[in-house]
């Protein structure tokens, strides 16, 4: 069974801890007075962050856990507060006494620690990486995040789905369409309606356009981190072209507000022409980049995530597919009918993740042709019913999971698991035989989201 997520919610007389697997949902009852339960991390190591988050948010203890450190609550955070409890209503907290965080460290003769972040050298999001080094070799890495924690889950409680939409689409800028599609599916489940084929196709078109932009950006950045700047110039131009097209079609460069229930006409001829041109440029890029030996010298065998580890850590998305796992939320009849082919590599290194992105860009361009339609349509959403709803979507990073419980017409509990939340926990496994100078390259090849992870 593939582990997907674990989260808690507060009910009237007890807590409920929900564990989501790919084939089943398990619910456990935990008492309010003495909240304690057993860890899942011995079987599914990726459950650690979920459980540490539950501990911070609700104060539920995991009695047999090997890692009981706070996760979201950093050094200066108020002690003994649990913001996701219904009784917590404060809108601000004071900085408290600084209690140092105890990093996972390997010590010994000549072993030293390298701390990187939270503010990094480039234009990227904040997060902390702590390395235990023996010379250049990385012995261990601890990834520590949640600097961008905005309290999104708490922020959304008490809002209607329509009021929440503008916030949900801005949780992670690179995956906005995927978040909107997850919300759309929850709205449809709640109103007990089916979406028309035309609207499905239009939203899928936006999702593939978003994926293309994200992958093209990475196809430039990954070689750039290996010192090959020319690829960055070329790919960033293609990414900018695609972003401008995205704005033309959706009204926004990042697609904020793009997924709604009406279809505007797309100029079919000019879009197909544009796709042809993009395909030609991507072909040229592929032909050129595959033929630069010094670059592949850096990519091959760097940052290997072996299949066994990838499965053990329940990884998803590009990272999982590069290690040989066939996991993709688009494996369904709708996508297969429109030309979806799952990208797959087995070597699990930077090269594999790079090639996966290339394959997916090509496949996305093909699918976008098939998603084009000329029908104009309006869809009317019925009244939303209360209940608990789950939805999934394959974002450009991987499988996105969202769960919303609606009570009296407003959100009672909002939970979302960005693919990055799982994959970040597997990043330290990729450092086994590499030197610290390879770290930026390995990190970029996964290109995980910090904002979606931290919430």
């Amino acid at each position, binding site marked *: 069974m593939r582990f997907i997520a674990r989260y808690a919610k507060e009910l009237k007389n007890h807590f409920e801890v929900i564990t989501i697997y790919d084939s089943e949902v398990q619910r456990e009852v935990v008492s309010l007075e003495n909240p304690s339960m057993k860890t899942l991390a011995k079987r599914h190591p990726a459950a650690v962050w979920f459980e540490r988050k539950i501990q911070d948010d609700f104060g539920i203890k995991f009695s047999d856990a090997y890692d009981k450190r706070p996760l979201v609550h*950093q050094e*200066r*955070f108020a002690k003994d507060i649990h*913001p996701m409890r219904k009784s*917590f209503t*404060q*809108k*601000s*907290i004071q*900085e408290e006494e600084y209690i140092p965080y105890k990093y996972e460290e390997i010590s010994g003769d000549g072993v030293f620690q390298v701390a990187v972040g*939270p*503010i990094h*050298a*480039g*234009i*990227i*999001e*904040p997060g902390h990486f702590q390395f235990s080094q023996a010379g250049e070799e990385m012995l261990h890495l601890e990834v520590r995040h*949640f*600097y*961008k*924690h*905005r*309290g999104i889950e*708490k*922020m959304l409680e008490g809002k209607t789905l329509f009021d929440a939409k*503008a*916030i949900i689409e*801005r*949780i*992670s*800028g*690179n995956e*906005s369409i995927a978040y909107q599609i997850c919300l759309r599916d929850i709205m449809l489940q709640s109103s007990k309606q089916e979406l028309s084929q035309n609207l499905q196709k239009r939203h899928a078109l936006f999702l593939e356009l978003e994926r293309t932009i994200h992958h093209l*950006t990475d196809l430039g950045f990954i070689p750039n981190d290996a010192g090959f700047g*020319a690829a960055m*110039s070329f790919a*960033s*131009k293609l*990414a*900018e*072209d695609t*972003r401008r097209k995205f704005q033309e079609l959706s009204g926004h*460069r*990042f697609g*904020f507000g793009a997924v709604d229930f009406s279809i505007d006409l797309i100029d079919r001829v000019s879009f197909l022409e544009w796709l042809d041109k993009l395909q030609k440029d991507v072909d*040229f890029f592929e*032909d*050129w980049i595959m*033929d*630069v030996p010094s670059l592949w010298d850096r990519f091959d065998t760097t940052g290997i995530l072996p299949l066994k580890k990838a499965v053990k850590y329940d990884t998803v998305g590009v990272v999982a597919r590069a290690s040989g796992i066939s996991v993709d939320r688009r494996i369904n009849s709708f996508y297969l009918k429109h030309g979806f082919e799952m990208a797959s590599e087995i070597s699990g290194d930077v090269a594999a993740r790079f090639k996966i992105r290339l394959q997916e860009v090509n496949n996305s361009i093909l699918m976008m042709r098939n998603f084009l339609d000329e029908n104009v349509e309006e869809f009317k959403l019925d009244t939303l019913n209360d209940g608990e709803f789950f939805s999934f979507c394959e974002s450009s990073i991987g499988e996105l999971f969202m769960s919303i419980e609606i009570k009296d017409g407003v959100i009672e509990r909002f939970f979302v698991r960005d693919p990055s939340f799982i994959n970040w926990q597997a990043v330290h496994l990729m450092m086994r035989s590499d030197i610290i100078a390879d770290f930026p390259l390995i990190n970029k090849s996964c290109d995980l*989201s*910090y*904002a979606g992870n*931290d919430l």
Partner: protein
Amino acid sequence: MIKFWNRRLHEGKVTEDVHLEKELDAIKKEIKDRVKKKFAGSLAIRMVDSGSCNACEAECNALANPYYDLERLGIYFVASPRHADVMLLSGVMTFNMTPHVKDAYEQIPAPKWVISLGDCPMMKAPFEQTHAINAPVDKHLKIAHHIAGCPPSPLEIMQGLLEFLGKI
């Protein structure tokens, strides 16, 4: 690599959107002149994200692509606040980032300026106040200029930088 150079030689300079290129050229020229006059030809920016959705960062990265190519005008995104003249701050100023943002600001040598980027730092984005947010950012730092937008496009960022250069 030969294929790459062949293509460059044969195609030459390609202008895709003549109207936009003209607008860009005018802004670029003005930015270059003012950077030359006020910052001796080199303006160093330290970008700090204090809890954005990453769209503002993506647009700043886009400033380096061949369409905008900000480095040609003497504006550099530098790796350390100690090399910087200006801090470009995005995001809602999360509780967890606040001490680090202040740290970075302290490390910038005077004279220094803070430009806030996007709607988040001013709490104008759809996000609402929670315990984990310390916005608006002008509670913590003196803001010299604000570039609005969610996110501001690369062109709007360039216009904003130009306005900032006119202000000081």
